[in-house]
């Protein structure tokens, strides 16, 4: 299956095509959107984008891990992880295009 990778550049190009702004400003706005989402998550907020999905931050406790190569036990410190839950709409779109 031919799999392509979309990057900021293509997102900025789509914004440029869709809205009458310059290419530079379109790129800046893609950055601004990602920045606002990141800032909200860093504040501990959940970010819900309807018909896309929600991003939330989960606190993980400390646990004992193991170095798979050496078998040595190493503590994994408590940390925060980001979880993305896709919406039903997004899941459906991905599966409908599959068949």
């Amino acid at each position: 299956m031919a799999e392509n990778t979309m990057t900021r550049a293509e997102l900025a190009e789509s914004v440029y095509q869709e809205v009458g702004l310059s290419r530079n400003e379109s790129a800046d706005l893609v950055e601004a959107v990602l920045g606002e989402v990141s800032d909200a998550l860093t504040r501990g907020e959940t970010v819900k984008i309807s018909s896309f999905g929600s991003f939330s931050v989960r606190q993980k406790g400390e646990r004992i891990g193991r170095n798979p190569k050496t078998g040595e036990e190493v503590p994994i410190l408590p940390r925060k992880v980001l979880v993305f839950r896709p919406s039903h709409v997004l899941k459906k779109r991905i599966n409908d295009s599959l068949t």
Partner: protein
Amino acid sequence: MTRSELIAAIAQRNPHLYQRDVERIVTTIFEEISLALARGDRVELRGFGAFSVKHREARQGRNPRTGESVSVDAKAVPFFKTGKQLRERLNGG
């Protein structure tokens, strides 16, 4: 934060833009990501994270309530891996 709060935040920082245009920008970004995933493509946004589609094979599942065996079709699920920079920021980096 919801989609409309995100739009409001961007609009506030960019007073020269019409609210309508900010809405189109935010909508376009998430729509393009969704379309890429529906094509089976990856979306890689350095520092933020990467979206991809993972394929799950058909399997024999079980209804946990009745214990009855049910077949689960093969499916594709969207997946997000947090970027290094954002992961570090979440942890005070």
